[in-house]
């Protein structure tokens, strides 16, 4: 039940003439998660009109990639959604691997799953922190989230040499094997993570202020979600059971036993989006445990030359990124560079329903709705 905006013409006919307050929230605003702007019109505190403005961070990502070799644009995919460089790498590698038809070694597949699920943990845990920060908590949940994120980023750094811009995946495998003892450290982290999640849930999930702030706010109906092309946790919070890890079973996801949390679609509000992410973390931990138990020894990368010329073809590689369906569409024309390179950014597409969710709510609601969509401006603007 999307709250309809009040009929302002009607109000004015009745003589309750009020002047609207126009505010440009952003591009520099504490709760816009980057250089994003919302031009809002307020009636008192109620949002009457909202216009999202973005593009401040446009870096010409797609055109750049069309002018360099396939490998060279791998580090640029890190910078799309800079929280989840590992999954960005994977989606791009998946698309390019379809072009050149290369076999990925077993160990590399396992490590890819491990990296992707760790990335999902990083993304969800910080997102929840930021979301509660938008709700007005003084950074306490965010600090707890960042503590866990630091531990995972340490692991990323040990494996790939960088904490955020990992640039770790290669066509046909991974750049290098993980160092000695890395898997044990990861097992230890994964074993300890549920205890942290328990504490986090105890802190947040039953807090009455959070409940009353988020429930019934920013409702997104199943129809609108599907029509707008929403993907990821946001779609599942609106009651659609759709997860590419199950649908496509890319990589080796069909080997793991895990569940996909979703709602019955009655509400689809901020609380659902927040809770779906909390529950997904538990499932990620389950996948990680299985992957870490089964990982074999062996090669890390298939036979691929650094610079290659794929046959003219089209390929679309997509994965279930932490934010939704992340896809790379490549057209090869027989040279070392892609003819067309296109990103399907989940952040941007999920952002399109912002206005529909915010109208009629309070200005404080607009902030948390934006927070619950989970955007990263690097990916929105590209």
């Amino acid at each position, binding site marked *: 039940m999307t709250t309809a905006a009040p009929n302002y013409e009607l109000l004015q006919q009745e003589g309750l003439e009020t002047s609207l307050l126009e505010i440009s929230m952003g591009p520099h605003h504490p709760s816009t998660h980057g250089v994003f702007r919302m031009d809002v019109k307020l009636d008192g505190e109620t949002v009457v009109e909202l216009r999202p403005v973005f593009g401040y961070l446009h870096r010409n990502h797609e055109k750049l990639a069309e002018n*360099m*070799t396939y*490998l*060279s*644009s*791998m*580090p*640029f995919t*890190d910078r799309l959604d800079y929280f989840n460089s590992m999954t960005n790498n994977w989606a791009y590698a998946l698309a390019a691997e379809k072009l050149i038809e290369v076999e990925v070694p077993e160990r590399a597949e396992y490590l890819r799953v491990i990296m992707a699920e760790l990335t999902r943990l990083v993304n969800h845990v910080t997102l929840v922190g930021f979301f509660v920060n938008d709700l007005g908590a003084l950074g*306490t949940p965010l*600090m*707890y989230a*960042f*503590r866990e994120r*630091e*531990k995972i980023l*340490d692991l990323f*750094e*040990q*494996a*790939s*040499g*960088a904490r955020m*811009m990992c*640039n770790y995946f290669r066509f046909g495998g991974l*750049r*290098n094997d993980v*160092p000695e003892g890395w898997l044990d*450290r990861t097992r230890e982290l994964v074993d300890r993570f549920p205890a942290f999640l328990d*504490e986090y849930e*105890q*802190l*947040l*999930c*039953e*807090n*009455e*202020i959070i*409940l*009353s702030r988020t429930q019934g706010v920013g409702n997104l109906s199943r129809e609108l979600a599907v029509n707008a092309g929403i993907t990821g946790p946001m779609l599942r919070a609106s009651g659609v059971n759709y997860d590419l890890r199950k649908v496509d079973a890319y990589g080796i996801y069909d080997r793991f036993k895990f569940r996909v949390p979703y709602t019955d679609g009655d509400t689809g509000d901020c609380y659902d989006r927040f809770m779906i992410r909390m529950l997904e973390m538990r499932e990620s931990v389950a996948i990680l445990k299985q992957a870490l138990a089964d990982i074999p020894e062996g090669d890390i990368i298939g036979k691929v030359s*650094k*610079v290659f010329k794929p046959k003219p073809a089209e390929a679309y590689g997509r994965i279930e990124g932490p934010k939704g369906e992340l896809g790379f569409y490549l057209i090869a024309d027989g040279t070392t560079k892609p003819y067309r390179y296109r990103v399907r950014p989940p952040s941007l597409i999920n952002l399109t329903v912002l206005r529909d969710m915010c109208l009629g709510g309070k200005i404080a609601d607009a902030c948390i709705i934006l927070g619950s969509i989970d955007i990263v401006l690097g990916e929105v603007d590209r």
Partner: protein
Amino acid sequence: MSILGGGIFKGMAVTLRNFVGSYFSKERFITTNEYSWRPESELPQSIGDYPKEEGEQLSDTTTVNHYSRNFPMLLHDTGEPMDTIRCVACQICERECPPQCIYIEKSTEKKENADGKPQFYPAKFDIDVSVCMSCQICVEVCPFDAIVMNSQFELSTPDRFGGLLVRRDDLLKSNDYYHKIHPQEAATRDERMAADKAAKEAKKKAAAEKAKAAAEAKAAAAEAANESKEDTE
């Protein structure tokens, strides 16, 4: 709005536990000690311990982990840097560098390298710190193992025009230094290079032998032909 559910008190119990716990367990803190692969005793304990010697850099002591990468460096083997430089100025890295931060000028004449072979060398090899994004693509595409990543991170400078452009002579580091900062990676790289070299030599040898055999066969054939010729004569 309800305050009677007790969820707020649960949350307050969590924060209280963290408040008390932060005095007792170091694990709760955000910074982790796993950051460095070096033993804790070797690390500087506080900022006051640094620098111990003139010119010492923090990154020399804390260096971070096996795969840490911050900025490229050019490798040379044991000996005078310019005499044993591995780079042959083939300019592949310049072409492949995603942000285009490398500038190379090839030398006009050849010079002997560490193996004693005459090779070109870079007359100029500049990398712009402000543009480089530490992605390591140059390392991967280099066919000569001449460029690797340094973990040095103190690159700030008050000079914003000249200082941010690192020149060839500052980029040159010895292979021993590489072994010091990235022991594992350097060892595997050296092993692979040795193997490549051995394979190459074996190939060369095989090729030489083959050539020799072919020549011998040719000679034999010629001889045989001669003989047959002689026979026919």
